[in-house]
């Protein structure tokens, strides 16, 4: 690992972000990344966060048209409520704050506590839970579906809604609509190595892969002998379409877990798109890259997000963040 010591990994990264991105205000000590022009008068603010190790999520999505602030926790560990309260206070213009929370016990509990505290301080807070991962059965017997790739769509589309001047309830409604129409499935070809552990989080021999993994270096639902890109695409797309029957066109995210070369990701995208054509699912926009990662894990995930005309317009709306940029 290219680190100093495990204990300073997050602080070191924040110092590096501060140096690279003058358009962000990075509070290294309190671990809050805020767009430098916050609060933006009259606009709803978006705060997200979660464990570190998923970069560019979330810090790389802070900026006009997307997040107002991000709270990075320790590697794979939800941030603490203090961070979210501080972020909310920094970005609230009076129009309220939307917390975007991936559905993990830790994230949910910490954001819940933060919401209470922030409201005590007079900030109007709404929350949206992202739970798009079809590998987990959403039942009483699990912590519920995990939040993975759809987080990018929720953050972008709700960010555009806020940018368009929508009030908090409407921004929240957009976020919920996006999450409701988005599903993901991920595979791992290797485990990842966390700084604290210093060795792979689980044992995955070359020549095998894990189907249905999340983004925290956990093993998936099932181990299989290595499959081809085409077979993996087949499995992932089928898993997603079993759960989502899109009537509208979709946004497609072919996401790398961090250690998979872009060359392979693009090849994987070719297979995914071929299948979607076969299945009659029109792809309105495609994003290929390492956006919601698990440190150095090799693997990929497929997220489909169905979009009506309004959501598509919000997707195309300008965004200017370190990792996602288009429009003016």
């Amino acid at each position, binding site marked *: 690992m290219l680190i100093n010591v*495990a204990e300073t990994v997050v602080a070191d990264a924040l110092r590096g972000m501060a140096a690279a991105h003058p358009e962000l205000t990075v509070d290294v000590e309190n671990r809050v990344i805020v767009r430098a022009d916050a609060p933006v008068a009259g606009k709803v603010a978006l705060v997200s966060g979660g*464990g570190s190790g998923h970069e560019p999520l979330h810090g790389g999505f802070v900026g006009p048209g997307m997040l107002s602030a991000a709270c990075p*926790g*320790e*590697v*794979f*560990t*939800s*941030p*603490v*409520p*203090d961070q979210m309260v501080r972020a909310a206070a920094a970005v609230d213009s009076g129009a309220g704050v939307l917390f975007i929370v991936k559905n*993990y*016990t*830790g994230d949910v*509990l*910490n954001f819940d*506590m933060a919401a209470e505290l922030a409201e005590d301080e007079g900030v109007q807070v709404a929350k949206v839970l992202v739970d798009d991962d079809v*590998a*987990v*059965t959403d039942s*009483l*017997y*699990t*912590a519920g579906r*995990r939040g993975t790739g759809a987080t990018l769509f929720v953050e972008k589309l709700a960010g555009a809604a806020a940018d368009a001047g929508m009030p908090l309830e409407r921004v929240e409604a957009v976020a919920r609509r996006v999450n409701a129409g988005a599903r993901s499935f991920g595979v791992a070809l290797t485990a990842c190595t*966390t700084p*604290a*552990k210093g060795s792979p*989080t*689980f044992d995955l021999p070359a020549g095998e892969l894990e189907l249905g993994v*999340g983004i*925290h*270096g*956990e*093993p998936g*639902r099932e181990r299989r002998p290595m499959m081809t890109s085409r077979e993996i695409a087949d499995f992932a797309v089928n898993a997603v379409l079993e759960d989502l029957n899109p009537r509208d066109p979709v946004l497609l995210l072919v996401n790398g877990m961090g250690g998979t070369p872009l060359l392979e990701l693009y090849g994987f995208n070719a297979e995914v798109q071929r299948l979607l054509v076969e299945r009659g699912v029109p792809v309105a926009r495609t994003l290929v890259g390492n956006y919601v990662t698990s440190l150095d894990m090799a693997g990929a995930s497929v997220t489909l997000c169905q979009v009506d005309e309004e959501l598509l317009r919000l997707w195309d709306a300008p965004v200017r963040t370190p990792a996602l940029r288009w429009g003016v």
Partner: protein
Amino acid sequence: MLDADFFRRWLTNAADAVDRSAALLTELDSPIGDADHGSNLQRGFTAVVVTLEKEAPETPGAVLTLAGRQLISTVGGASGPLYGTLLRRTGKALGDAAEVDEATFTEALRTGIDAVAALGGAAPGDKTMLDALMPGVDALGTSFGAARDAAREGALATTPLLARKGRASYLGERSIGHQDPGATSAALLFDALAETAENPPAPGADHG
């Protein structure tokens, strides 16, 4: 009777135990979690010890409430709010008495554990910290030593369970056969509690 110093020593002993077992806890959190439970608790309990030293709260309730708040502010993850709530609610239940007896503490701890169950929505048998906390507090009526043994057994007994809460639940059947890291750290807390009770400070020692 248990005074503020007793609880300070408990948490200090717990911090030492977490330090010693951090690698083990993270190791247990690898096959069925995200390999951070040891470093999470280490960060939290280190901060607790520092804060208790600095703020020197004077009642058992204040010690536990402060420690709980500190865990919430430094741990993150699932275990931060859960352990933080455990200590905070236990502390609140103790009120501002200068000393409490064992029965009062046992009842307060049960309140704290109930708060953990309410917050996390887990029940005994879900393969979580509750599987060590519940038997631990149940045996506390007998003795600190009995509580230690019961919590330890509870932690060991999580191995064959199918996880229904927390990250391990994502694994479904594959969560079976692994000991729950949170139950293991919960057993450490009872370990430290027994250790604290069994090793009273030398009379006349400076209680800070």
